């Protein structure tokens, strides 16, 4: 079985909810977690005589997404009706975009050392979501709260070559969407959905093999597993003389395998035609410029800037830019500090740990970034030791008090007063004549012992640098 002779050709279709307050075509709330059919009106329920009216914010977010993905924004795009019958589709057609989507082309750059890899996009378009079905023993129950929620569909070219690359693409895409405030990317909650198209071909060939579509994937891990599973299945099939059929598979998360969908309901002719109830969507260049102007800095740009301006390495950059919240926090800690690395380290260790341990966001678990900045400035100015800062930080997380107040209250200020330190050194030296003799006799390692004793005598508050200097002098005789 020669799997290495083959390469996987993978394309991903992501559907994500846009972060709007109201639905795409009506004034119902998009708020998650309401009781069944509470966020529903005649429009999103498909009652007779209703008409769609477009949500401007959804258009702005779609344009933002297109700009972030380097797409061409169509000055004029059309909505189309996509017809199929399904209980959760109230009009039995979905308002989507077919021939002229709002964004075309574009690419997502995957973070990587040296050579960033680009995954090209085919298109991005706007469409409305359908309702949700719950399956009982002998019936299904339909809730239309989700019906009409705005979606963008992001379609990639089949440029992805491995399960790992697929995971990287999804993570970066989600990161970008969260950075620009277009989506919160919660895959497990259903606001970020991914379908995978997988085919294989012999390495070196430029023809595309027959592809399988895999649906029902609700985590990045499952996407990667499903791809690995399907690639192996297809290769084995071809190697044993079989042919890959164009099918749709469902991912079974319990068995961790794919199986073909039984239902013929999906063998559909969607009969697309332009939506007569909506005029063409015009996005003038001024609007695109305005959206581009108000875009937050994207992860890729931050990665470059952190490396170039702050001298941070790939790993550090990666951790700090993995979430917009982390990056924003880091940048808010920075002002006034001489060494950005201090801030970087602190955020990567103390702050993220506080958030992870408590299971909450950085904003909830850690003190305000400005206060952490103040704390670290005190360390830089030798007003407190690094250890003292850690103690202060833990207290600040609990009490939410400002850095200066906490340092004061807990008496963490570092002593740099040379006469006080000299006095402590004298005391220690006087108390350990034997060890002093040994040190002077050549046992250099004992220096640490003396430092420790001085620190103990000063309650840990002595400035270590000053202690070292003075002790060295005194021990030298």
């Amino acid at each position, binding site marked *: 079985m020669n799997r290495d002779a083959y390469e996987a050709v993978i394309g991903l279709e992501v559907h994500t909810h846009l972060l*709007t*307050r*109201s639905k795409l075509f*009506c*004034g*119902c*709330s998009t708020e998650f977690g*309401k*009781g*069944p*059919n*509470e*966020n*529903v*009106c*005649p429009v999103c*329920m498909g009652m007779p005589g209703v008409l769609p*009216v*477009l*949500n*401007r*914010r*959804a*258009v702005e977010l779609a344009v933002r997404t297109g700009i972030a993905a380097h797409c061409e924004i169509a000055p004029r795009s*059309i909505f189309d009706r996509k*017809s199929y*019958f399904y*209980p959760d589709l109230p009009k*039995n057609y979905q308002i989507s975009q077919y021939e002229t989507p709002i964004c075309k082309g574009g690419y997502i750059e995957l973070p990587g050392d040296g050579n960033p890899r680009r995954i090209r996009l085919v298109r991005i378009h706007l469409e409305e979501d359908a309702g949700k*079905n*719950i*399956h*009982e*023993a*002998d*019936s*299904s*129950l*339909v*809730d*239309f709260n989700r019906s009409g929620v705005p979606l963008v569909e992001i379609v990639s070219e089949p440029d992805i070559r491995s399960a790992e690359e697929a995971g990287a693409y999804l993570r970066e895409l989600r990161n970008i969407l969260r950075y620009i405030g277009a989506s919160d990317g919660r895959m497990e909650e259903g606001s970020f959905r991914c379908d995978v198209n997988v085919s294989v071909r012999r390495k070196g060939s430029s023809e595309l093999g027959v592809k399988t579509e895999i649906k029902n994937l609700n985590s990045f891990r499952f996407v990667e597993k499903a791809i690995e599973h399907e690639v192996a299945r297809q290769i084995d099939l071809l190697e044993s003389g079989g042919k890959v059929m164009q099918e749709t598979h*469902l991912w079974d998360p319990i068995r961790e395998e794919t199986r073909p*969908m*039984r*239902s013929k309901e999906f063998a*559909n*002719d969607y*009969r697309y035609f*332009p939506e*007569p109830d*909506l*005029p*063409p*969507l*015009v996005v003038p260049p001024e609007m695109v410029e305005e959206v581009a102007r108000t875009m937050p800095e994207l992860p890729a740009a931050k990665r470059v800037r952190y490396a170039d301006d702050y001298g941070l390495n790939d790993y550090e950059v990666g951790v700090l830019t993995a979430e917009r919240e982390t990056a924003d926090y880091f940048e808010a800690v920075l002002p006034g500090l001489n060494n950005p690395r201090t801030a970087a380290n602190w955020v990567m260790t103390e702050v993220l740990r506080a958030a992870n341990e408590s299971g909450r966001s950085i904003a909830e678990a850690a003190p305000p970034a400005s206060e952490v900045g103040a704390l670290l400035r005190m360390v830089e100015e030798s007003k407190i030791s690094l250890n003292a800062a850690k103690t202060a930080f833990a207290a600040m997380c609990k009490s939410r008090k400002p850095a200066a107040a906490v340092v004061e209250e807990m008496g963490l200020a570092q002593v740099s007063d040379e006469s006080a330190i000299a006095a402590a050194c004298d005391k220690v030296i006087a108390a350990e004549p034997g060890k002093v003799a040994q040190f002077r006799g050549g046992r250099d390692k004992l220096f640490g012992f003396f430092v420790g004793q001085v620190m103990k005598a000063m309650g840990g508050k002595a400035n270590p640098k000053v202690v070292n200097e003075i002790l060295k002098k005194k021990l030298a005789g």
Partner: protein
Amino acid sequence: MALLARLSLAPDEEERIRANMDEILAYIDKLNELDTREVEPTAQVGDPGMPMRDDVVTNRPDPEGMLANAPASERGYFKVPKIIE
């Protein structure tokens, strides 16, 4: 075609509709007398310009009202025969 339109037709009905369709389609074929290669299609005849809504929630929850016409419902949901994937 009937499946796409979700219309199940009784056999004699199907016969009649098929005959009607054939006649109508034959009549409609006369459109092919026209050369429309250089003609732009008209999808709409209203004023151009897409009015858009501000992103505000204007609807209040009214599940009873929305379910009032439901042929079958349960615990606030619309009830249908079990959907088979």
